[in-house]
């Protein structure tokens, strides 16, 4: 207390406060704690560091990380972050606020969440969005639970094998403990199999299917026939999407999807070594009552002014307790603000250009890599910004060489392919340099 910056107490303050309480010392405040469980040792921690020492410590660690040009996606995309975003999101009125329970002094948070929900709805084409989820994979897991909760007595959910690996792993984990049966749809052609779906549906126990929009191979999936087949069996179509790509590829609503989920990281959020990101979730109105998480709605205050509040809270864990189908409480609100500011800045044209640059760069790289003779094509399907190739050289050596030259590229996949991704941040010169490095392997 004597001079620690985060504790404002003086010795005299403490004395007066103890006096008001009627105890003699700080330790007396713990008289209800049995002596046997008290910790009497010294924490095995460093002594307090000054601010400069804290900064220097992290700077020294930061220096151990190797700066690389990122040519990998796999669920985390290196899109450009306009400088306006951190400027806005670091405003302490947003940053240091709690969940907007006291709506009268939280209209800032409530309005941006309402805008975020509106943007997710226009990108997906669906009716309603929640206020955010943890990340894309957990949003997919929540969608699985929603599918089962919406279906009467059907407990099986089908997963496309073309979903991102981490989406599959998280959904499988949630399913295991929730007692939900999973089935799989193959994707040997690089595209989720409709025949597999039709076959699986014949059993009559399917609550829904989760399929990607742009899949783990970067391929834009053709979901013709998926929604009809599922709806015929009163099962739901869940689409797992990259929201950046939704600016150009067919939307979940256009494919007839009932629920859309994905990771909003691609909307201007830095890679951050995996987090924080932001999961999104949108659905048709008929599934609104099963939608997990917080939702912001518009209303009027007692003076007739437009106002925003958390609404439909009867769905949520703090009301439903053990009857809840989701336990989400904290979400990723500030990251939803990142995405909202990003989409405000980019608008429809900026999003188009981001995708055009990524698409063109990725196709340029694909052609150039094939021309080196060190790869074979795998799938002959339309892709957006990510693609896989079959390496004709040792993939470990390939990645090591690229690393040495300052590139993170050629991510090895479970299938034995290598994966590349190009965003608008990668210049033609960087792509050319990557190809030159490949030629050295």
């Amino acid at each position: 207390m004597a001079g620690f910056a985060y504790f404002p107490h003086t010795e005299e303050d403490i004395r007066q406060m103890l006096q008001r309480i009627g105890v003699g010392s700080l330790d007396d405040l713990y008289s209800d704690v049995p002596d046997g469980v008290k910790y009497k040792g010294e924490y095995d921690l460093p002594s307090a560091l000054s601010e400069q020492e804290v900064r220097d410590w992290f700077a020294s660690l930061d220096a151990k990380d190797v700066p690389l040009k990122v040519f990998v996606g796999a669920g985390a995309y290196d899109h450009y972050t306009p400088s306006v975003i951190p400027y806005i999101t670091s405003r302490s009125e947003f940053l240091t606020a709690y969940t907007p329970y006291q709506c009268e002094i939280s209209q800032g948070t409530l309005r941006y969440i309402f805008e975020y929900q509106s943007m997710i709805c226009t990108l997906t084409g669906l009716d309603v969005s929640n206020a955010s989820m943890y990340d894309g994979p957990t949003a997919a897991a929540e969608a699985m639970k929603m599918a089962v909760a919406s279906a009467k007595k059907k407990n099986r959910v089908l997963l496309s094998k073309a979903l991102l690996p981490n989406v599959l792993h998280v959904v499988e984990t949630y399913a295991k403990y929730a007692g939900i049966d999973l089935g799989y749809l193959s994707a040997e052609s690089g595209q989720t199999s409709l025949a597999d779906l039709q076959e699986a549906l014949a059993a009559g126990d399917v609550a829904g299917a989760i399929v990607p929009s742009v899949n783990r191979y970067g391929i834009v999936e053709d979901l013709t026939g998926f929604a009809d087949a599922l709806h015929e069996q009163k099962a739901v179509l869940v689409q797992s999407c990259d929201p950046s790509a939704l600016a150009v590829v067919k939307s979940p609503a256009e494919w007839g999807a009932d629920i859309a989920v994905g990771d909003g990281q691609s909307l201007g959020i830095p890679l951050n070594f995996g987090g924080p990101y932001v999961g999104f979730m949108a659905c048709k109105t008929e599934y609104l009552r099963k939608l997990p998480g917080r939702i912001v709605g518009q209303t009027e205050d007692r003076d007739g002014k437009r106002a925003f509040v958390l609404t439909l809270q009867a769905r949520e864990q703090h009301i439903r307790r053990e009857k809840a189908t989701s336990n989400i409480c904290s979400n990723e609100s500030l990251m939803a603000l990142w995405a909202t500011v990003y989409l405000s800045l980019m608008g429809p044209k900026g999003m188009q250009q981001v995708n055009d640059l990524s698409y063109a760069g990725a196709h340029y790289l694909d052609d150039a890599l094939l021309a080196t003779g060190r790869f074979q094509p795998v799938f002959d399907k339309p892709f957006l910004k990510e693609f896989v190739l079959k390496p004709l050289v040792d993939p470990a050596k390939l990645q090591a060489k690229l690393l040495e030259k300052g590139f993170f590229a050629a991510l090895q996949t479970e299938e034995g392919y290598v994966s590349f991704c190009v965003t608008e941040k990668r210049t033609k010169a960087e792509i050319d340099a990557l190809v030159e490095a490949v030629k050295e392997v």
Partner: protein
Amino acid sequence: MKYYDKLVFELSREGRTGYSLPANPWSKGAETLPAALRRSTPAALPQVSEVDVVRHYTNLSQMNFGVDTGFYPLGSCTMKYNPKINEEIAAMPGFQRLHPLQPACSVQGALEVYYEMNKALAAITGMSLFTFNPCAGAHGELTGLMIMRQYHLLRGDVKRTRVIVPDSAHGTNPASAAVCGLEVVVVKSTPEGLVDVNDLKPLLDDTIAGIMMTNPNTLGLFEKEIVEIASLVHACGGLLYYDGANMNPMLGVVRPGDMGFDIMHLNLHKTFSTPHGGGGPGSGPVGVAARLADIIPVPKVVRSSDGTFQVVGASEKTAGQVSGFLGNFGIILRAYAYILALGKENIKLAGKLSVLGANYIKESLKDAYKLPIPTVCKHEFVFDGLINDGAHDEVHGATTLDVAKRLLDFGFHAPTIYFPLLFHQAIMIEPTETESKETMDAFIEVMHKIAAEAAQDPTILQEAPHTTPVRRPDETRAARQPILKFGDAAV
């Protein structure tokens, strides 16, 4: 706070742009995709200039109250000051640009943060090993329960599908249990507000996977019988889960591991000072006792014998994978910066000072607000409404909601209200160790003033707030006629 009534969509003008992107050197784009795979019409995103965006969100921010604005005595939420150096650390460009799948050799600095953070949290809690993959407290609870279930499953003990939760528990506890496929068994509280050991005993059998507790509990009371509870639960073959939402007052005094807990989560956005961000991102690391170390989720960070750090993506006994990558790294950076700044000397004081503040406010206000449990509290405590709510004849008295709304007029955030559910007019106050005596005295004075107003004329409270940008929005209408996005018509 000034009322500002725009939505960004309402600023939109066709042809306006707020971005700056490089020229496309390839003169082709995504229109090359087959038409059947392309969306038919562009998304209806706003078209606004950069300055429009900056002013709009600046105006929105000015309708918001944060910890930097003022006192935030929100019980159970630990709204302590968020140190600014932590923001600078999290924004270091070297950390921000790391892709989560980069080879371990290129991210040794980041992995060392995980390793050191694990060591620090293990020291503070007495647990053996932490996973940082959960993104929030409730996510940590779910992860912890998955570990609990996996522990029993690995032993072939498949009957254990029920979990005991006290009636005073946070709402997330029973919800997490349900999501994890566990049946919730409620154990009652004694009139003193503690878990009733006599009610607990008959519940313990070979179908019990474990018990979830928070200590101090949601009433701010230390569960004195914890050692007996731990031995009873362990004797029946169950595990103890510690909900770390209330860890703050235990800093430097009691470690969950020493109380007999096997699994716990921490809310880094509570105890370890990371900002709440209007509802997230948080981080909910889960710690386990040594015998459960093999069960923690993947991916996980390990240290090799040569001193380098690796990421392990699969393991035989693991409970599974609970989030996309290694967790909310940006939050972990902030929390570790906080631990380094406090050091072992100050971290011990944080808990005691938080308890000092809570008891000071409790003792200062019990003349005006009903104090159902008068004993010494820990970091928070609960009032059960006003002693004199102003009700007489036909006049209805002021409720807890009215008190909360009136506080807003005086520049304070409201406490948590109507939780815990054990008291109908619950007002739950948690000041944290970062508030000065002057701030708490000002709060106490205002709470007394509000109590006096209520006694004299409760309508002043019932019509509050009077000075905020909006006043008591119509929540019933919001739920009955939902308008959930721009352009929705009320139905």
